[in-house]
């Protein structure tokens, strides 16, 4: 029997997979953009009217500023995520408390998508199939993908994102003849107040940035995280602005408030000659892949957070119970997405946990660090 020599892996080590800048960039861009495929543009239109695209642009700018401050803080803390920092500051108790807040935020966020997607599939693709069957298939795929781990999901993001971007570019080009500039007016929609003041509550589109924070220990450099985050916010902001602009241009204002799934509705407008009459089928396809990837990634992240919070050695046994809990919440608390939009407190909670809590904890950590250094110097 041969003796095992010291083996240096030339490729990936699946267990200790480190995310590169490109991986983080793709994952974050995808996670933020997924929500735009559902009802999000409609809610923006409801709030700001024809000025929805300005609201998205404005929100992206605000998030970029918040993110810039956060990265400034985190450059000094190193490759630690919010859970590790909270443990440093307040020990186990604070770590578990912060973990619970993070988990609630993640579960609220993902259960909205998990609730919406099977319903969309039933409504659009499989009207005669029971939703239980649709959901079972969805659950099997998501749990299996999450079981495979972060590494394959990150790798698939690298392939999927350019593909999705290409298809949406085509989508945009094919939609051009259906756009009417008249629909864009009045330019400021429901007014400046609605766009810039009420619009702040819609910052929850960027709550997925919390995932980036959780992933920090799995990254190679802090600069990678910083650059990837900026890129993701910029691209998703651009995408969101573009989607809102297209939606505003494609449908007159009163009508655009009535469509449940704006992007799907726009896809239905596309017709290429006699043969290609139903291009939304391709759109459905990309949509399905996107949601599956999103849900699987979130499921894995939630399990990782639980494992980290309670010092569990393995996170895989948590997959099915966690998925069951998410399913239960999404189906028993009514329409989660509507709940998120109609209940302002939930939105504020999500914004606080995802955008401000990391900033606050990072800041406290730096202050304590400085005090600690000062204490050491004095003694």
């Amino acid at each position, binding site marked *: *029997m*041969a003796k*095992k*020599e*010291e*083996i*240096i*892996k*030339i*490729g*990936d080590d*699946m267990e200790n997979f480190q995310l*590169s800048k*490109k991986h983080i960039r793709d994952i974050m861009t995808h996670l933020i953009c997924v929500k735009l495929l559902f009802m999000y543009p409609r809610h923006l239109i409801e709030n700001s009217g024809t000025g929805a695209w300005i609201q998205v642009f404005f929100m992206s700018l605000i998030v970029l500023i918040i993110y810039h401050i956060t990265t400034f803080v985190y450059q000094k803390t190193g490759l630690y995520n919010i859970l590790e920092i909270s443990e440093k500051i307040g020990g186990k108790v604070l770590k578990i408390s912060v973990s619970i807040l993070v988990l609630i935020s993640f579960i609220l966020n993902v259960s909205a998508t998990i609730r919406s997607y099977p319903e969309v*599939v039933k409504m659009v*693709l*499989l009207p005669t*199939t029971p939703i239980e*069957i*649709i959901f079972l*298939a*969805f659950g*099997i*795929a998501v749990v*299996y*993908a999450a079981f*495979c*781990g972060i*590494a*394959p*999901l990150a*790798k*698939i993001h*690298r*392939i999927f994102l350019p593909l999705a971007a290409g298809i949406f570019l085509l989508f945009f080009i094919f939609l051009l003849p259906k756009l009417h500039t008249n629909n864009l007016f009045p330019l400021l929609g429901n007014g400046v107040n609605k766009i810039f003041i009420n619009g702040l509550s819609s910052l929850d589109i960027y709550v997925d940035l919390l995932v980036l924070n959780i992933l920090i220990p799995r990254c190679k450099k802090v600069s990678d995280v910083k650059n990837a985050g900026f890129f993701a916010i910029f691209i998703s902001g651009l995408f969101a602005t573009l989607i809102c602009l297209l939606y505003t241009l494609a449908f007159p204002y009163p009508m655009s408030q009535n469509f449940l799934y704006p992007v799907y509705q726009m896809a239905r407008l596309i017709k290429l000659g*006699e*043969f290609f*009459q*139903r291009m939304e*089928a391709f759109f*459905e*396809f990309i949509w*399905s*892949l996107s949601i*599956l*990837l999103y849900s*699987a990634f979130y499921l894995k992240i939630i399990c990782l957070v639980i494992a980290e919070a309670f010092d569990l050695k393995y996170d895989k046994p948590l997959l099915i119970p966690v998925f069951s809990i998410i399913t239960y919440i999404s189906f028993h608390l009514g329409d989660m997405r509507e709940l998120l939009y109609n209940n302002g407190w939930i939105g504020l909670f999500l914004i606080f946990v995802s955008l401000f809590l990391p900033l606050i904890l990072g800041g406290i950590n730096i202050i304590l660090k400085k005090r600690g250094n000062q204490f050491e110097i004095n003694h």
Partner: protein
Amino acid sequence: MNPFSYFKKFVFFSQPETEIKFEIPQKEYHIIYDVRNEITPLIPKISKDIHKNITYIKKRFSVPENNDVVIRNIHLKDERRCFLIFYDGMVNTDAVNEGIIKTLQELPFLDKEFEENIEKIPSYIIEKFVSHAQAQLTEKLEDIIEEVNFGSCGLFVDGLDIGFILDVRSWEHRSIDRPQTEQSIYGPQEAFSEMLRTNSALVRKILKTEKLICEGVKIGKVSLTRGVLLYLEDVVNSALIKEVRYRINSISIDYCISSEEVAMLVEEKSFLPSNQILLTERPDRVARALTEGRVALILNGNPHALIFPTNICELIYSASDSYLRAPYANFTILIRLIAMGISVLLPAFYLAVTLFHQEMIPTFLLYAISASRENVPFPSVIELLLMDIAFEMIREAGIRMPNPIGSTLGIVGGLILGQAAVTAKIVSPIMIIVIALTGLGSFATADYSLSWTNRILRIFFIILASILGFYGVAIGIFIYAVTLANQNSFGIPFLSPFIKGQKMSKKTFFIPPIWKKEHKPEYLSPKKDKDQEKISMKWRKKKK
């Protein structure tokens, strides 16, 4: 018999006991030497007493039961006795007669001077009298036995505790032929044969460098199948060669006689649909892989080489792609990709559209499909499975039949059966088109094992599409993509060119022009990164 056993026999219709009952004994304890357990042999070293040697050899080779073993006694001029052992049919008889027996018989009288310096005799015999290219001395009996089993001739001389191994191997083998499964119009037309040294020489003929290492390996405790690990010492990542060597040396099995078995024994996941090691019969493909920093394994008696590691792109390329201009090669690759897509997804898409999403196809096409299915009694999924299974049966039968009958069978099966099925209104004409296109797509797949993968996947997608339509297909694609992304081949991700930083000049699914292939594949982390200079076509520079 107790009532329960009686009831069990009655229910499960157990066969009646026959009078003649043959049972293989579970264990035999009279094996004098079991190579599996590496028991110390009875005579670890060669004895000076030739009788002891011959008795042991006869026992070990089961002479006279083993009737192709030849033990030839010879008397030297000084009446000293010696004997040869070899397998009839595995040695070159002329070499044995002329180069060994005749020489030994003519060996001059070994005088007293030699008797006093007996240790000089063996080397004296080899240097002065053995007119054969490869001859070596050994004190170990096991070495001689192993070499005899591999076609050499063993020689024992009375009074000497050293034996001789004389390489006189020569057995019937197939000559170098054209490739059978990797045919190409351009490029070399040679394929590996079953001879190990011929195969390694075919590669060495292409890569004329002393840095090409042919490292010997043996696989199988009993079969001791010989092989060579090929790699370019100055290119390959040393971790990769260590890992390949470790996995191969760690195979603990009695019999392993083919490259395919080795591939199954060293791959990481056995139940994945896609293979993780490339199998090729072309020396030029092996040579090209070695220059990229991969490792190859050739086994004796096998016309295929294994290439480690591999990725999805390598399975999609055909051997001829390297010899075609970039536009031609990329066009054929595109066609192959479409063909593969059709072979996996077309039946599933057809089912999804006809069963669930009729609104997605134009109305006049929908009418045509409905009209063609008007008198067919089966649902689309049954119809599809029937035809697919029939097609697979024709394919399997075609492989088993001799060549002329095989092609006839294909025509008979494909044309007549299909036509008859349509006329009998068992299947619709459009289904024949779907199955025919699927079959064509499957045949157009470059790698044979990948076409197997696609055939299995097709069934998987058919089932998903018949239950959940496009949604099921999307779920299937997602699960398959995650599985592929989770797959590694000897430390590199299976989807490597897409997911691991790849410089633009390197090939992914599509290949760049030859002058743009400046770097070796990054994911292999070779010792040498560059394949050519930035400007390889120096003539493009202005003349001074």
